[in-house]
């Protein structure tokens, strides 16, 4: 039979390929890319780049994008896209810093602000999910609509004013730095680890990959695809909510302009991290690397006093280069 005769050689080649084209192998490319960027940083910035304080600066700047990107990774693996994360992040921050919320937080506990932000994020995400899963609107359009509406709602609530965070407990918490590491970085790390477990070790993660890999096969295997899609956008909203809280911790103010164009950085990081835009494949580790690559690059440009315009050009080049490399890998692993 043809299957039995063809098997042994194919077996060998998968053995050889497995670590390079497997999830770990794809991340090797990202490690190399990040290392090269760091070398460039040391050469151009020297001491100012290779300094522990500077590393903390990079990570702290990467934290908000990183947390939102973890949520986005799930959305993209499932075959969708969420353009609304930046606006939703802005809305959660504004909602959490209204006079009403802050008064309640003063009376009860500063966590009221956090819970408010997370609830608003999840709510916006679930609205996206309902429209996409049950209204059968393509994710691009549904979340584009949310991008506009959430930003508008944030402006209406805040009246386009900056809302200072006056709850001492809240600001104190974000000033903490256990083991010398700022709170924002801890949260990023925590969310990344939780995201990794959720994707790789739970039924939720398995369903996400199955739905993105082949939604029809998943449906015919008995998976509730619509409900799962709803949850995924809820999760992305939650990540945007956490990002909103972190933004408040970093800037100590809620404004309707928080997170403008954040969705582009987030999607770029996820895609550069090796997640297939068509769905079905992606890793949390890759996304973390994607975020770090962009933020390290930004840091180098800042250290060398280079223009933000040049940064943007470099970002574009990196996105294209990363995707071209991915396609090479994808073709190679399919041809066998």
């Amino acid at each position, binding site marked *: 039979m043809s*299957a039995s005769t063809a098997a042994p050689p*194919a077996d060998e080649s998968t053995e050889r390929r497995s670590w390079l084209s497997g999830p770990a192998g794809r991340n090797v490319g990202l490690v190399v890319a990040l290392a090269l960027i760091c070398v460039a940083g040391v050469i151009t910035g020297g001491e100012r780049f290779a300094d522990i304080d500077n590393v903390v600066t990079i990570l702290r700047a990467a934290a908000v994008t990183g947390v939102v990107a973890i949520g986005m990774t799930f959305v993209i693996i499932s075959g969708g896209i969420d353009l609304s994360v930046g606006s939703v992040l802005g809305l959660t921050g504004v909602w959490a810093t209204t006079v009403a919320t802050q008064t309640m937080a003063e009376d009860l506990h500063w966590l009221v602000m956090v819970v408010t932000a997370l609830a608003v994020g999840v709510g916006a995400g679930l609205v996206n999910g309902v429209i996409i899963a049950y209204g059968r609107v393509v994710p691009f359009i549904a979340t584009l609509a949310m991008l506009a509406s959430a930003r508008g709602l944030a402006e209406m609530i805040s009246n386009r004013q900056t809302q200072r965070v006056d709850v001492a407990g809240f600001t104190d918490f974000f000033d903490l730095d256990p083991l010398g590491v700022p709170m924002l970085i801890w949260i990023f790390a925590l969310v990344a680890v939780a995201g990794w477990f959720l994707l790789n070790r*739970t039924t939720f993660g398995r369903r996400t990959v199955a739905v993105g*890999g082949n939604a029809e096969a998943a*449906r015919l295997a008995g998976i509730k695809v619509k409900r799962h899609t709803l949850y995924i956008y809820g999760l992305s909203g939650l990540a945007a909510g956490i990002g909103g809280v972190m933004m408040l911790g970093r800037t100590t103010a809620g404004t309707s302009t928080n997170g403008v164009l954040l969705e582009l950085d987030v999607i770029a990081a996820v895609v550069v991290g090796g997640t297939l835009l068509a769905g*079905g494949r992606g890793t949390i580790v890759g996304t973390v690397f994607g975020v770090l690559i962009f933020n390290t690059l930004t840091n180098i440009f800042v250290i060398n006093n280079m223009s933000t315009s040049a940064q943007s050009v470099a970002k574009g080049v990196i996105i294209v280069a990363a995707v071209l490399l991915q396609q090479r890998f994808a073709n190679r692993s399919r041809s066998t």
Partner: protein
Amino acid sequence: MPPSGEAAGTTARPPLLRMEGIVKHFPGAKALDGVDLDVLPGEVHCLLGQNGAGKSTLIKVLSGAHQPTAGRILIDDAEVTIGHPVAALAHGVATMYQELDVVDGLTVAENIYLGHELATGGFTQRREVARRTREILRRLGHPEISPHREVGQLPAAGKQIVSMARALSHDARVIVMDEPSAVLDSGEVENLFRVVRELTAQGVAIVYISHRMEEIRAIGDRITVLKDGRTVGRNLPASTPTRELITLMTGRAVEYAFPRRTGVPDDAPVVLDVQGLSLVGAFEDVSLQVRAGEVVGLAGLVGSGRSEILETLFGARKQSAGTVSVSGRRLRPGSVPAAVAAGVGLAPEERKSQGLVLDEAVYRNITLSTFARTAKGGWLDERAERRVARQQAEALDLRPRDVDRAIRTLSGGNQQKAVLARWLVHGCDVLLLDEPTRGVDVGARSELYGLVRALADNGTAVLVVSSEIPEVLGLADRVHVVSDGRVVHQAPAQEIDEHRVLDLVMEGSVA
């Protein structure tokens, strides 16, 4: 136009198109093994044959989509090479495929001139294109269709006219029509015939593929019958009796090895009970029962509604009327999870697009319906999943055994085994198999047959659909014959033969 029947006597005219000894090999399969076909100018030449006889491959060779391994193609007595689809058009051969190949968002004129737009310096000559389009449509007897109409707004029959007009825009002298009546209702079929008669009167030759005898009688001039990639009847008159044609079409070179039937005890409980199931536009009033340990087959041609019946009783489509019960309990209509929870499993027709997550590991495909059950509080138990998958790989002789490789790398037969394994792990009372051996080589087929029989012997109720009638007859205990969305006959498998089934589906389908 010469009346049908008389055409056989007009062979004195030189053939317009002649195919001689066409052979086409695919890796591991001989699709065509010596086909002869000659087509006269102005005739309707019907091509008959069962699914898998080689009709589609022959058309693809003629339209330049496939290159023949051996054989000659002559047009006007001159040998030609048809290397690609554009070459076929240049030689005056146009093909209308079964799936209407028009672009809904473009206008009628844009569709007709798609790929050979008239342009000067990159600007399309809209006026000239519209004029020529009107001329072609007039020739087809449809001056009422505006060249500027969007094709998506036309009914199926209108789209077919556009498809035909495209063939004429290439000055086609031979037009291949692959089951053109499949998408049409009876009034539209009449119009199609009228157009075909007008075209043949102008000297255009039509190669017409259809399973419907009454159509062949109505417009056919001569018939060529294919079986197992060979021409078994050439240039027969259209008046050839149906029984004679069916005898030519049946009887296979490929031997199927079917497992022995073990017999279903009379007191075996009815597991799957379908009553008056209907889906508007697909099938009507289907009732059937499958008992524990029984294999029931649905025989019928492609498009007869067989797959839709399976998908509906699995909940993947929502019926417009009727009920489906499993072990006496009614299933919620249109809900796959409800069917799965009740112990129904489906191995779908399109294995790759409906059955498998191709980039995922074999074991994850096997446990796709059960990973949530093995999981503890939402946490996957991958060790248990791998263990279960390995057991199945062993039991079903999955090759290779490695359950961690991507399922994409497995052969068709082994992929199908993985889909079956999924439902074995899940533990089904009812197993629905849609074209279980499509794309599976002969050796692996008999293994699959054995597997299906073993499942039934363990008390599973199996309902199987296949376009290959011998497969249904050999595998099933009882057979329902489906034609145009209705069950037209049912009988124990031993009491019915391929001949009778074909007779039922070909004569029984009134357009």
